[in-house]
């Protein structure tokens, strides 16, 4: 078991450093638009991924770098996408908010809050219909629990008893407003599950082992035909909402408290408890550091997006022709 946790640690370390690189490249003017970093929320993606089958379906939000990486996208391909390179995951047509790796079951990052929950329900319906035993997972923020699509998705998934997991990354804030100030229940996802007769789990989203266990249990239930589960993982983002947000609206003691519960620190402590030598953990950090450094160099050296690509990929034939 210990070596598995070390693997998870290393994956989280790679994500943390990739996010750091994205941050630095943005400040250096090499990433345009905006980015929504998931630093602090790595354990949700890594824990969940570890519990899923390679052919399961994952749907994420604009804050989705960690999910793309956890499902197997390379840091180089992710950073290249952020840097508008033709080698980017989406060849420069998606950007930070739409990282996708379909061949790894990562079926997209969606930037209309809540929109992907019904999609995950549909993917689960498809899996059930085809009898493949796959599950679908929608990761979403606390803010998404107040949009209609969330409620429509939970209801439909419940009545059709579909193999879908709704995983809320409750980082306590929407953009700049605390979720608690606009929601009448303390646990925005878990407390709503009962309305749809769905089981829910309220978990520590910063503990990668806890996340992995919860997702595995829910996925097993789903595969056994027992229907959806709502998992609410409490976590915290280390940065502001997006690139321009210094997050001054968060009380200093709250930030401090959560930084002390950094998922990487928690995993480190647990590894020590398990007797894994510190040197091994440091070596994992060094490998992550090197990998991301090389990824940055690779992305920077890659050719820019190909202007010819602007007029492709509208239709299945690869083109964009709409008239004769």
């Amino acid at each position, binding site marked *: 078991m210990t070596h598995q946790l070390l693997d998870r640690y290393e994956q989280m370390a790679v994500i943390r450093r990739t996010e750091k690189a994205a941050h630095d490249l943005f400040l250096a003017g090499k990433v345009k638009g905006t980015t929504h970093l998931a630093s602090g929320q790595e354990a949700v993606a890594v824990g969940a991924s570890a519990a899923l089958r390679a052919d399961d*379906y994952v*749907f994420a939000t604009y804050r989705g770098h960690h999910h793309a990486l956890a499902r197997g996208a390379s840091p180089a391909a992710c950073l290249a996408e952020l840097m508008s390179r033709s080698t*980017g*995951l*989406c*060849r*420069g*047509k*998606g950007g930070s908010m*739409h990282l*996708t*790796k*379909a*061949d790894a079951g990562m*079926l*997209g990052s*969606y930037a*209309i809050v809540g*929109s*992907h*929950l*019904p*999609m*995950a*329900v*549909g*993917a*689960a*319906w*498809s*899996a059930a*219909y*085809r009898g493949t035993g796959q599950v*679908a997972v929608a990761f979403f923020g606390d803010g998404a629990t107040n949009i*209609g*699509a969330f409620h*429509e*998705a939970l*209801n*439909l998934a419940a*009545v*059709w008893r579909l193999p879908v997991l709704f995983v809320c990354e409750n980082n306590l804030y929407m953009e700049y407003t605390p979720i608690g100030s606009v929601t009448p229940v303390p646990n925005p996802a878990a407390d709503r599950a009962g309305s749809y007769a769905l089981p829910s789990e309220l978990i520590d989203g910063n503990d990668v082992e806890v996340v992995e266990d919860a997702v595995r249990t829910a996925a097993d239930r789903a595969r056994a035909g027992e229907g959806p589960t709502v998992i609410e993982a409490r976590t915290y983002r280390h940065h502001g909402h997006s690139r321009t947000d210094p997050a001054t609206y968060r009380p200093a003691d709250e930030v401090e408290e959560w930084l002390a519960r950094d998922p990487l620190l928690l995993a480190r402590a647990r590894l020590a408890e398990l007797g894994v030598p510190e040197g091994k953990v440091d070596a994992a950090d060094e490998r992550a550091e090197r990998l991301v450094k090389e990824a940055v160099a690779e992305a920077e050296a890659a050719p820019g997006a190909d202007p010819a*690509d602007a007029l*492709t*990929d*509208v*239709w*299945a034939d*690869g083109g*964009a*022709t*709409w*008239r*004769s």
Partner: protein
Amino acid sequence: MAELVTYRESVAEGIAREMRRDRDVVCLGEDIGAAGGVFKTAVGLFDEFGPERVRDTPISEQAIVGAAMGAAMTGLRPVAEIMFSDFLACCWDYLANEIPKVRYMTGGQLGVPLVVRTANGGGLGFGAQHSQAVENWAFTVPGLKVVAPSTPSDVVGLMAAAIRSDDPVVFFEHKGLFAAKGEPAPPDHVLELGRAATVRRGDDVTLVALAWTVPMAMAAAEELAREGISAEVIDLRSLVPLDAAAVLESVGRTSRLVIVEENPYQGGWGATVASIVADEGFESLDAPVRRVAAECVPLPFADALEDVVLPSVDKVTAAVQALAAY
């Protein structure tokens, strides 16, 4: 001659034919199961294909279209029904932001081979929230194919093409045509999306129509013929792909163009057709291009009011007469 069939029956027939040949075709929507759909356009599907393939849903337009999208991304060919086209607004995110963009924004990694069918259009006194012709809404979104058949046989042929298409298709069925009868579709009838039908040949003016305005344009052409004006009628059948070549070719012979559309003049699809002809067919024109479209108001309830707002045979003939005298 084979017995005539209704447009309404042809919807179910078109879907059933595809469901027989492809197990990946599944249907979902409100009341489409045992009830056969509120317009009875799904009658027989539930009995033949069962509840696994013909699924009743809650009244959740976002979940219906969003789930259809997720299913389409993962190997199925869903046919989702949105009861009245006005309700597309309740799931517009999926038609404006999700379905048409996902292939593009993922650099071609994902595709969405689905059909969203919906009952469109006025003339039946359903009032402002159940009668709009909204094909122009879909027409404004790059990445959606937009189909609107006018005859029972075309319903079947275009349904086959829509369901087999690897691209998302919004399929507008016209409420005012459900009871209309026509020749049944031949076996294995598949039309090509983006191919207009010239449904009446003529020399003096081209009438471009879609769905419910096709019989209207035909009736107008009949009346005009009595006055010695020979009108050609083109049924576009789909707005995307748009058979602009057919329109340009026709106008090249007739030199006059009247576009007959049910959606409001303001932002209606005819404006795009007119702009293409103004740009690429300018030399052929002997008169201004005219659009007979709905007035730019919500659709009223009373017949006397609805008649004022919607295009009609009389409005079409008047427009042509004015152009003939130009």
